[in-house]
């Protein structure tokens, strides 16, 4: 019970959890929650560019589709992209970081140099290059994002494993005769799991931002699938009259990414109480 009470007291975590849960609920129950589920693909030109009112809570877009409903369905896409891209990046980055960090041999430097090269290119630029060559499609966005984000996890796990390597209990396990694989799986991974979770949560936020940028540049999912980034791009023509058209998706992105960042910060303190609060 005490940890639960401490959790509640940690405002960052509470806000983070609520925002992320809202996103997940919006994605799962997009159909029942939305007023015009048909507007995901269908539209109604007669209702073009209506300001927010009773029928269209967040107004309509240039095709007359209800922005509120499209945002809900857009949430599905956002989760799909950020979860898969981050998962793939973690699956590539963590083992590389673990191997490079645990063994201090030639290949650990090589692996780190390779991840440095990937880190040398600003993520969004490489993602653009990849997404553009493969053409606009969800799986290309996912490939582009995971291909450019895995070095962050490789770097993190490398640093954590390297510092863990001279912890007494690891040296004791080595001295006692446990095999390297056994030490990595049973000692190293559980110890660094908490920082991976924290980094992954924050990484989700960053991936959503990057996916939205790709969408904005027209490299995301092709129309008519609802994609928050592209909705903002479409809205530019109709500013400043259709102010709601640009604002609504932007706020959705803001809240969701903030949710993940707050969740990440909150988890960092909960999972690793040793790290002094207030950082």
């Amino acid at each position: 019970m005490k940890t639960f009470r401490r959790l509640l007291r940690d405002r960052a975590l509470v806000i983070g959890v609520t925002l992320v849960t809202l996103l997940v609920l919006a994605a799962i129950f997009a159909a029942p929650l939305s007023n015009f589920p048909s507007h995901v693909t269908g539209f109604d030109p007669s209702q073009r560019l209506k300001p927010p009112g009773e029928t269209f809570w967040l107004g309509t877009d240039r095709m007359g589709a209800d922005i509120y409903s499209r945002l809900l369905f857009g949430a599905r896409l956002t989760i799909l992209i950020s979860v898969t891209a981050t998962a793939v990046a973690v699956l590539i980055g963590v083992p590389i970081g673990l191997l490079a960090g645990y063994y201090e041999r030639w290949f650990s430097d090589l692996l780190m140099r390779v991840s440095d090269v990937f880190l040398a290119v600003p993520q969004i630029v490489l993602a653009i290059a990849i997404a553009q060559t493969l053409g606009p499609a969800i799986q290309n966005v996912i490939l582009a994002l995971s291909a450019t984000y895995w070095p962050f996890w490789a770097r993190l796990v490398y640093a954590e494993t390297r510092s863990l390597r001279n912890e007494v209990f690891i040296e004791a396990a080595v001295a006692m005769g446990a095999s390297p694989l056994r030490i990595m799986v049973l000692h190293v991974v559980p110890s660094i799991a908490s920082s991976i979770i924290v980094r992954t949560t924050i990484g989700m936020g960053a991936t959503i931002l990057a996916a939205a940028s790709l969408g904005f540049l027209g490299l995301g999912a092709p129309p008519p699938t609802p994609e928050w980034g592209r909705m903002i791009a479409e809205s530019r023509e109709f500013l400043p009259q259709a102010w709601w058209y640009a604002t609504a998706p932007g706020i959705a992105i803001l809240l969701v990414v903030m949710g993940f960042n707050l969740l990440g910060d909150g988890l960092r303190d909960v999972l690793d109480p040793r790290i002094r609060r207030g950082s």
Partner: protein
Amino acid sequence: MRLLVLALRRCLWMPPTLLGLTLIVFTVSHIIPADPARVLAGENAPIEQVEALRRKFGLDKPLPQQFVSYVADVVQGNMGVSLYTQRPVADDLVERLPATFELALFAMGLAILLGLPLGVVSALMRNSVLDHAVRLVTIAGLATAAFWLAILLQLLFSMELNLTPVQGRIDGWGPDPITGFYTVDALIRGDVDTFFSALRYLALPMMTLAIPAMATIVRFTRAGVLNVMSSNFVFYQAAMGLPRRVVIWKYILRSALIGTLTQIGLVFGNLLAGAVVVETVYSWPGLGTYAYNSILQSDYNAIMGFTLFTGSVFIAMNLLVDIAQAVLDPRGR
């Protein structure tokens, strides 16, 4: 002397990293797409034209050979011709560089000028109202999509309050270039009107790029200062009754800066990346718009050229940060 050698050692790593970068760019442009020649020629180009292009760019030769010739071209600055501007990509990049750099440096300046003091103060006055406000703004700043922020600022300042122009970089034609930086050239010539006009155009794009950068700097400075404040030498200086302001602004800040410096290198890199999106919103005639247009036209060489160029700037930036760190931290020497 040691410092020079340290820098030299880091420089040694630059060529292999650049080569690695070229390999990635080569892979993306030559290997991933099914038929690069078709992509280059465009969807509806006739077969003969595609074949001609294939021979012209040597795409029929084995991949390693293609890579060697690609590297050879790039080293001589020949990144192929841009379909969009019909001019060598290298020339386009060099011509548009000052616009982006002027914007980036102004944004970075603003981010540091505001970010550092705010980070320090919010650390010193921990858990005060200011601290929570700063943390909230920081978290919001980090979560805001740059392109959306750009549109919002345009909406507010340009369209509603029309304090600043919506897009573009200068009224009419810019001053003929000395450094290529409009503000600097205007100052050199003492031409105050152009200077202020350039500033008015710079205002919004600068702020759009500065806000996320500032948020990162505040966050790391605050963590850095908090970390240093709990160290033994701060306690010793307090025990010896040294004035608090001396301890903070001389000893604590300098130690905290070391940590923040590495982040500033990263932040500058992300700033360059952000420029792609932000420049298009403000149609700022820099590298970003160039990259955006080349995306629309799927202008291959331009995209690859831009990626390679930004990557090398990024690598150089990291090198500069490493050297600055060695200068600041005697233990590194």
